[in-house]
């Protein structure tokens, strides 16, 4: 795809902004133009946070995403706010550990994964976002799962925060849709 626009949203503290950065970094390292933009305002642990990621073969114009190809929603508030902004035919990935079963738009693809439960079970409670990245790689054309998996590890390694349990979380996110 020549151009992909993504919104990641959830509670502050769920790693929403980092999730977007991981996607941006993986795309940059495969020679794409990227742009990441944080929601702007008073964000804190427990509040809502979101970021926009744009990936393109060409120069990127605006930093803002109006309609997204992919929305990653880690909590209920994010589903309510951003489901309407998924393009027709686009993808919505939902953390079903924190979002109650509901009816979604029928002109989008919805993938529900109990990311928080999986991460907790694997002893990596802050790894729900990595589970979701597994679901993203499995269900979209954005990245090969193996590529994204190593890219996540190198992302955290560079920041001195590598955690072997991230790879487990990622694999579970992929396998959940087998």
């Amino acid at each position, binding site marked *: 795809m020549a151009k992909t626009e993504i919104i990641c949203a959830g509670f502050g503290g769920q790693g929403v902004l980092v999730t977007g950065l991981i996607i941006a970094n993986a795309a940059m390292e495969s020679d794409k133009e990227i742009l*990441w933009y944080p929601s702007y305002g008073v964000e804190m642990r427990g509040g809502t946070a979101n970021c926009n990621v744009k990936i393109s073969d060409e*120069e990127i114009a605006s930093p803002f995403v109006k309609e997204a190809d992919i929305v990653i929603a880690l909590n209920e508030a994010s589903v309510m706010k951003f489901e309407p902004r998924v393009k027709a035919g686009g993808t919505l990935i939902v953390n079903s550990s924190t979002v109650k079963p509901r009816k979604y738009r029928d002109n989008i693809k919805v993938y529900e994964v109990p990311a928080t439960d999986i991460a907790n079970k694997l002893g990596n409670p802050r790894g729900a976002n990595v589970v979701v990245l597994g679901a993203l790689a499995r269900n979209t054309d954005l990245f090969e799962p193996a590529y994204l998996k190593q890219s996540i590890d190198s992302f955290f390694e560079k920041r001195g925060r590598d955690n072997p349990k991230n790879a487990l979380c990622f694999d579970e996110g992929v396998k959940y849709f087998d």
Partner: protein
Amino acid sequence: MAKVLMTGNEAVGEAAIRAGCRFYSGYPITPQTEILQYLSWRMPEVGGKFVQAEAELSAVNMLYGAASAGARTFGSTSGPGFSLMQEGISYIAAADLPLVIVNVMREGSGLGNIGASQGDYLQMTKGGGHGDYHTIVLAPANVQESADMMVLGFDLAEKYLHPVLIATDAAIGQMVEGVELPDFITHDIDKFDWAVRGCKKGDKPRTIQNIYFMDDNYEQHLREKYARMVENEQRWESIEVEDADIVLVSYGISSRLCKEAIKIARKEGFKLGLIRLITLWPFPEKAFAEVNPDVKGYLSVEMSTIGQVKDDIRLATGCTKLVDNYGSMMELPEPEGIIEKAKSML
């Protein structure tokens, strides 16, 4: 060198360090606070001085002092803080001192708000402080240019012994893009024969003055300095202006939307072009010589409600063409809106 992810604000800070800057002073104000945040740990790491001043007024005067000593020095601010620095910038220009000041523009006059804007064009290009001076003004449109223009800014400041301003904004400051960082340069603080570094016994004292009454050629010196900048430092990027019916004139964040507008318009057969201003002062008048002589008009696209670039376009074209403005305050200009406005000028 491989690209790294950085915000525009972080890139400004890291590029300054790599350009040999070892003195920074500023005061926190959104949307430029990340520059202070970054340098608060990064500057000590390379043995430089980071000073969070009690206000912009003292920050700019510390920069004045550090530049007098020959250090590569820079400060940053936004909106109201930039206004507070004007007196100091006027003094620095008068004293013929090289330094860089970054203004991460924010909305509105008065207190305004924290969102992106391009409302400081007139203040930055026409003086801003009291008296008889201009400063060179560079306008990055992305994170890469935010880094590159820090290096260029120091080079130009030292070439002309003059302050250089960098006009960025909240959107460019906050966005993350891939950036290839510049190489490390070592700045020799003793390389200038004018710097005041303490006078040893027997040395001839040096002074940094604000006016050189004693020098017979003072007026001539100033005239020539500004003339050289106007002649040598106009920078711009032209896109499809040779056959354009309407040429957009834009800079910074707005120019990115103009490029999108050109792509859409050209697909429809509407010949739009763009002059992207890279220096805001000197205004790139030379860019207009490359434009289709039968162009119907120029449309200034900027995040300003009053249209601050318009008059400079009129002067650059000798008032021979239609000039209009597509401005916005809170939101980025929309490609569709730009095209509609441009069509209305045909």
